[in-house]
């Protein structure tokens, strides 16, 4: 595949220079220098997993033999540096940071008796699986586009003599045409009172998405908000974030997607994925 000309997380504005460029060594195309101080251009990445994959390749070993711990630390170091430079990182990157911090803690602390959750190694395997899967899809994409393609290497009849049509369909339109027509006109009519979305608070939906993405990964009790708050929220947004995250978690509980637990009032709230197997309540 050709170079990564597109901006990563905010690809809708590909040309606009992003502040991430300050993390970018102006050396040519290589986004990661040999310098361990980690110089990365986030703008060139398609999200945190892509960034991780790139860092993993830097370890120059097969993905199955990679040090996940080293990878997590590299990533966290990068996030810390970005924060030190007061750069705004997209929420996806911070969610990943929170998760990696959690993973790191699991990898470093020996498993406690009575902790029936996944081991750090199991969580690391999940991450490894996701990296491998993404890499596989990326390779698949490049194999796909490098095939002989119609209109580029292979051609159809240039001078068709007729269109063989279904007698039943004299008219053509695709579902895309239909939906496009609908969305466009409804939007046009609604245009008069479109509001600009404000991002200073976490919406319920945002919180929900983030929680789903994180909790989906872990099966044991975790005080997630602790990690989330550390990486995701500025002090001024804290209250709103806690409120939204809590409301969203209740909603997820109701749908059976997660379970939550609080040992006593004002104690940290623990959550875990709700697709329970035959596992008993954890006895922490």
């Amino acid at each position, binding site marked *: 595949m050709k170079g990564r000309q597109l901006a990563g997380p905010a690809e809708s504005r590909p040309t606009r220079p992003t502040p991430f460029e300050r993390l970018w060594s102006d050396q040519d195309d290589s986004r990661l220098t040999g310098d361990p101080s980690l110089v990365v251009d986030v703008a060139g990445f398609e999200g945190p997993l892509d960034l991780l994959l790139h860092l993993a390749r830097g370890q120059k070993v097969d993905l199955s033999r990679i040090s996940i711990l080293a990878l997590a630390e590299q990533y966290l170091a990068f996030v810390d540096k970005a924060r030190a430079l007061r750069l705004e990182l997209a929420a996806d990157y911070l969610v990943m940071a929170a998760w990696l911090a959690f993973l790191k803690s699991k990898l470093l602390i020996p498993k406690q008796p009575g902790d029936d959750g996944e081991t750090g190694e199991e969580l690391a395997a999940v991450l490894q699986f996701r990296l491998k899967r993404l890499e596989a899809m990326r390779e698949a994409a490049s194999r796909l586009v490098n095939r002989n393609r119609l209109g580029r290497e292979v051609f159809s009849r*240039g001078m068709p003599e007729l*269109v063989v*049509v279904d007698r039943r*369909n004299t008219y053509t*339109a695709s579902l895309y045409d239909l*939906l496009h027509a*609908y969305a466009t006109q409804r939007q046009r009519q609604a245009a008069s009172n479109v509001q600009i*979305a404000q991002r200073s608070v976490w919406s319920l939906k945002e919180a929900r998405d983030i929680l789903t993405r994180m909790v989906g990964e872990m099966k044991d009790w975790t005080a997630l908000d602790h990690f989330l708050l550390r990486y995701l929220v500025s002090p001024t947004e804290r209250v709103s974030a806690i409120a939204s995250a809590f409301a969203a978690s209740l909603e997820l509980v109701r749908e059976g997607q997660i379970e939550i637990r609080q040992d006593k009032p004002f104690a940290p709230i623990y959550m875990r994925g709700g697709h329970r197997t035959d596992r008993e309540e954890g006895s922490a």
Partner: protein
Amino acid sequence: MNNGPKSVVVPFPKEGDGQGLSNPIDRMQVMETVRMVEAIIFASAEPVSERQLAERLPVGADLRTALEELQAIYARRGVNLVRIADSWAFRTAGDLTYVMNRDAVQQKKLSRAALEVLAIIAYHQPVTRAEIEDIRGVETSKGTLDTLLETEWVRMRGRRKTPGRPITYGTTEKFLDHFGLEEVRDLPGVEELKGAGLLSTRMPSNFSIPLPPSDPDELTEDEDPFSDIDLEELGLLTPRVTED
């Protein structure tokens, strides 16, 4: 050009045997040139002149022999290689035009207006013409609705139980069939349209789109079925076949 008599089958020629090329290397080169010429003429949007062909072939390729060979190969086929002035093109064999012309219907694209109205009918059914106009903010021409009825993707369902008893419109089985939907409810909702990038993520919070009925064939409470007189007036009954 020799089209041969109708429906008489003649075995295909054995592809240039005995063209006097005894050397197998020469023979292979000719056949490779034939393949190139075949592909170029096939893909071209208009007849290709010999000069154009020569330009695209490798130096030293024998264009004349290749064309003769190709013409011989296709002489008895369903498609023939024909010469038009100094240019070459493939054409359906003359005796097969009857296979082609049968119901070769002109396929038409729906106009933007028709698409818009169709989409509104799909999402908002049962819906009256006035309601469609209200949603679109423009008047809908009679022709647009007629076109949609002609596609057989849209049908008149009945009459709304309101003053004036306006006709309600809805989609048909053929609509689902054409657009690959199992049911009308499979049409994407607001969040999904946003997710697919079809709808702006910054729509006002009171923006909503209706959930189409689960069974579009059933009349809703505020709809009346058509009466016989309605059917006749709307031309939905073909010249009365006095029944009963």
